[in-house]
């Protein structure tokens, strides 16, 4: 039993040495050791725009600027800053453009509100449509339509 344990642990050690560096993150050398902080770093990175890329988050981008920002975010996290403080800092430095998820402000009210408004109006419209008195409608076919129908049926 002892032997197995020994073998196992040496195997794990071997793996560790051979693998070099295993981690989850953007670039291996950026990863924080604290798993919780690293998770938060990735959560934030996914919501921050890479300013020089086409519609990429810094989490996805290989650009130098993105890398710098990722490291910056991790430094701030290690300092003990909250997510909100980091977003605020980024916005103060780069403007609202850097956030992929726009914050609810006066100029984005319509953006967030539109889907809700559309749904609401749709439901109201629907309600009014359905409330219409169920009157019996007579949809008589016109002569032309009758002929067209006959033709269609006989084909």
């Amino acid at each position: 039993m002892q032997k197995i344990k020994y073998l196992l642990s040496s195997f794990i050690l071997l793996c560790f040495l051979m693998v070099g560096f295993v981690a989850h993150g953007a670039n291996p050398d950026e990863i924080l050791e604290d798993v919780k902080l690293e998770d938060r770093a990735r959560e934030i990175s996914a919501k921050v725009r890479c300013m020089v890329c086409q519609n990429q988050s810094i989490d996805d981008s290989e650009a130098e600027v993105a890398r710098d920002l990722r490291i910056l975010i991790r430094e701030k996290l290690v300092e003990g800053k909250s997510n909100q403080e980091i977003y605020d800092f980024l916005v103060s430095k780069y403007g609202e453009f850097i956030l992929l998820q726009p914050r609810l402000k006066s100029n984005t009210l319509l953006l967030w509100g539109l889907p809700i408004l559309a749904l609401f109006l749709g439901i109201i419209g629907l309600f009014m449509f359905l409330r219409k008195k169920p009157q019996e409608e007579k949809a008589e076919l016109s002569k032309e339509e009758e002929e067209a129908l006959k033709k269609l049926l006989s084909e």
Partner: protein
Amino acid sequence: MIGAYKGDSRLMGTALINAPITLLLISFSFFTLMYAYVTSDFSVKNVWENSHSLQPILYRATGTWGNHEGSMLLWVLILAIFAGLVALFGKSLPLKLRANVLGVQAWVLALFLLFILLTSNPFERLVNVPFEGEDLNPILQDIGLAIHPPLLYVGYVGFSLTFAFAVAALIDGKLDAAWARWVRPWTLLAWVFLTAGIAMGSYWAYYELGWGGWWFWDPVENASFMPWLSGTALLHSALVMEKRSALKIWTVLLAIITFSLSLLGTFLVRSGVLTSVHAFATDPERGLFILAILVFFIGGSLFLFALRSNQLQAGGIFAPISREGALVFNNLMLTTATISVLSGTLYPLILEALTGDKISVGAPYFNPTFGLLMLPVILVMPLGPLLAWKRGDIVGVFQRVFALSLFVICATAIAYGFLYDGPWLAPLGLGLAIWAMVGAFAELQLRAGFFNVPLGKAVQRLFKLPGSMWGTAFAHFGLGVTLLGIVSVTAYEQENIVVMKPGQQAEISGYTIVYKGNVPRQYANYISEDSRFDILRGGNVITEMAPSKRFYTTRKSPTSESAIYHAGFSQLYIALGEREDQGGMIVRIWWKPLISLIWIGTIFMVLGGCFSLVDRRYRYAVPKLAKQKKEDITDAKD
């Protein structure tokens, strides 16, 4: 069109001849350009800019539409093909409707041809003929370029026909179930191609861009997704109109909106407005031209709609709980989803143009908004087809799906048991996907009478069910399959990013990846360095993967090619990152469980569309079915 207005049948007849002639002429210019590409005729500026004589013949040919001018030419070619199809095969249409449709189609065609002639001439010549071309953008040198744009354009442009039908009906003031019956196959055809085109594009981006994402909510993607959403809504509302003569006005409006969104997509992609509002402002010619076309058609058709819509009869009535009700619900949600994607795409552009404030709207906006709107749609999806027209019996439906619900709840519970340490929402998502997949066949099962009649008879009945019913089942099943893939890969994806040197290995989800080293290779128009990896499972080498870095010599641009290993529906995905200083290489390895299902689901959707298309009721009315249709119409009367 003028002919139809005056009721002159001779003038109306000319449309039938004009359409094929236009088609012939446009095909001629398209294939001339293609010929120039294939033979590497660099006296044509467009060919010189986007081709290279050493490219494989496939990419030389597909390069024809791998650029602005050529792709616009493909656009109008497909437009002309659709017009030609109606002219040649739309014999069952009333002459007046057909002439009007062709007239509208000709208008669209004429304006886009003018656009090409004035702003995007693909045949511009160069005085000093260069010896060699500038090469096609490396990302486009892929089989994806051969398939994706044509499919997508057939979809986009196919909706022009639906639009033409809608406008024709508005001009004529005649809108009936027969109209919906003529329109639906064309819409379905466009939808099938658009679905395939979007799916293809998504898979192409997935393996070509190399960061493992399959949908980026990029404005260009949204541009194709919006017509798909509203087109899907249109399919469902046209169904109500065809069967029950209800929702007429709404259907026409949707037809107009869908094509407007196609045009808007063309505008967004082709005007350069997306890269930046400023890029648009510095070279406004093309953008303004498409914008003018956009305003002309959307404005014109909506004006016509406003003018005529109150003359149209509203049509049949139904209770909230009914087949129509479910389809209306689908329309409500899909339209809202379209609006949310639309506002997310356009809002930053409009805001910047108006106030100068720059904001970004990315995946963190679209995912929750869109996801929340789709949730109820998928919940209701299996129930809809079980409800009766006009007035459904919700209790009855629930009784019928009782066993199914139990099954889904059990499956979800089992999923929780196995995946308890994953995200807690994920098993619910899996359950929803299974609900959609199994529920899709509930209608077939009930109509065939499984469990009620002997098995053999039920199977017999099953194959006699109409194609459209099979179509619905397959398309809904496909959506469930896609959802299963999405949930699974979003929740359970594993990622391992490591610096590796030759001889080192990495682990992911039970696989061992051994880096063996690099092999340089020389190709016609690029050099490549393949990194070779052995993939081991349980100590045995099961395959080799070779992602590579390429360098295209003419454009001096590097690209990175990922490698994918398929393990069932799951994938192992390796992409190469930067080279590190001491001979190491950053290697990104992903385990993507069930990701293939995302695209396999779309194949089922396309198949579903095809089943509905070949439904014989659309092709000819067999006497037996004609009787049934008569009943439909008498139904529609009350």
